[in-house]
């Protein structure tokens, strides 16, 4: 459903991604592992149209989308829950969720259904619907970010390090929700530094180092692989 072939991205002179090829099948939960700065976020930003590849193709459902603008891609069904959440701090929780439907606004019924669903996944958001996003705790903000990404009814969602700065208990809760979302049929691509927790819910994974894919494999293969560990702490 999502396919990157030999994608390279540059920031000025620096090649942030070199010849990245990866695929995500419909319904899968795929995880990207790697240390900070390895290139995970750049992959995500390239898929969702925030960065343009200098080389290679990005395909979504067979259609080439490399270089398309982010606003068009959201419409096509790519949801992106970014690193750092990128919420609208002075808007209420409800308004943030409503903004999530921006690309697919119009269908009021679906929006209402989706809102219901997000509140189901994260009851706390329903409780705090009228509060400003900026006043929420880190975990709640992460939930809101996930919820907002879901509001556009994406076919595939990219979660970029959703566990950052979250207490372990909350992290687990977030991962459970991600798994649930995946089970409901949404394809998920997850970038994590929290490797083990991520692998536990993933079908497959890729390990990124210095902008390249160094290892890929199924959940089990990666769990046994020392490369994962090396990619993180250099040993």
């Amino acid at each position, binding site marked *: 459903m999502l396919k990157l072939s030999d994608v390279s991205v540059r*920031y*000025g*002179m*620096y*090649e*942030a991604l070199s010849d990245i090829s990866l695929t995500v099948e419909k319904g899968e939960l795929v995880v990207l592992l790697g*240390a*900070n*700065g*390895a290139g995970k976020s750049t992959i995500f930003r390239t898929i969702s149209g925030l960065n343009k590849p200098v080389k290679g193709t990005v395909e979504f459902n067979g259609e080439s989308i490399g270089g398309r603008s982010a606003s068009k891609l959201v419409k096509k069904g790519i949801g992106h829950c970014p*690193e750092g959440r990128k919420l609208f701090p002075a808007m209420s929780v409800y308004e943030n969720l409503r903004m999530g439907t921006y690309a697919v606004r119009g269908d009021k019924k679906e929006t209402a259904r989706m809102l219901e669903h997000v509140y189901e996944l994260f009851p706390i958001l329903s409780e705090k619907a009228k509060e400003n996003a900026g006043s929420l705790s*880190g975990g709640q903000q992460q939930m809101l970010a996930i919820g907002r990404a879901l509001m556009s009814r994406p076919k595939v969602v990219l979660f970029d*390090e959703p*566990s*950052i*700065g979250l207490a*372990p208990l909350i*992290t*687990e809760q977030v991962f459970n929700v991600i798994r649930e979302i995946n089970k409901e049929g949404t394809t998920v691509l997850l970038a*994590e*530094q*929290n*490797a*083990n*927790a*991520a*692998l*536990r819910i993933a079908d497959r994974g890729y390990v990124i180092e*210095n902008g390249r894919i160094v290892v890929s494999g199924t959940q089990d293969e990666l*769990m046994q692989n020392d490369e*994962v*560990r*090396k*990619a*993180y*702490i*250099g*040993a």
Partner: protein
Amino acid sequence: MLIETKGLTKRFGGLVAVNDVEIGIEKGKITAIIGPNGAGKSTLFNLISGYHPSSEGSITFKGEDITKKRSFNIAKLGIARTFQTTNLFETATVMDNVIVGHRLRTKSNVFDAVFRTPRLRREEQASREKAAEVLEFVGLEHEAHRLVQDISQEAKKRVAFALALATDPEIVFLDEPAAGINPDETENLAALIRKMIDRGLTVCLIEHKMQMIMGLADHIVVLNYGKKIAEGTPEEIQTNEEVIEAYLGGGDKHAEAE
């Protein structure tokens, strides 16, 4: 210990970015500060270099309390730093960028400048020589007259190093020196950092490229959630359960049990 912090804490609103951190940086050694994203590493740097005032705790440099000092005064004491993103003066030459680094060791004022006093001439000469010296040190002597916008990313990093070195520091704090450069270049930078130690400097760096860190650092401090969770040699860190958990995620044992 060249630099020591005790109970160092920084709060931004409700968020505790650095929480009761106690670290010591040994003279002539490479100390690395690592930790997952958002662990508070950069904030720690900002506190030590006087860029943010700390909420609690103390920082000493050679036994002197520098907690309340402003950044430019801290620089004068011999503490230099670089930034994650190098904000150099792009449309000036490398040399011009670096010369000003020695400004804090000079005393010339507007009066000296306008009347070209001997002091100014002396200090300009010193600044220029210093710049040439540090550029040679970082291996950029041949790029000295190019514009910064025309040199490579790695060379820019070196310019930033040179600028920091031109302040005649005793200790240099490097914030993600290898971010945004390719693996080969990373190697070269690591060599440069070692060279700095050989010259008697002390280096403290934040870095995410673990291979580089593990091969380079003498001492590693690991932060997570603003707290120091471990410190030790690279070997110790690599086998430290808590560190592995911080990086690879909770439930490691749990996962193996499955």
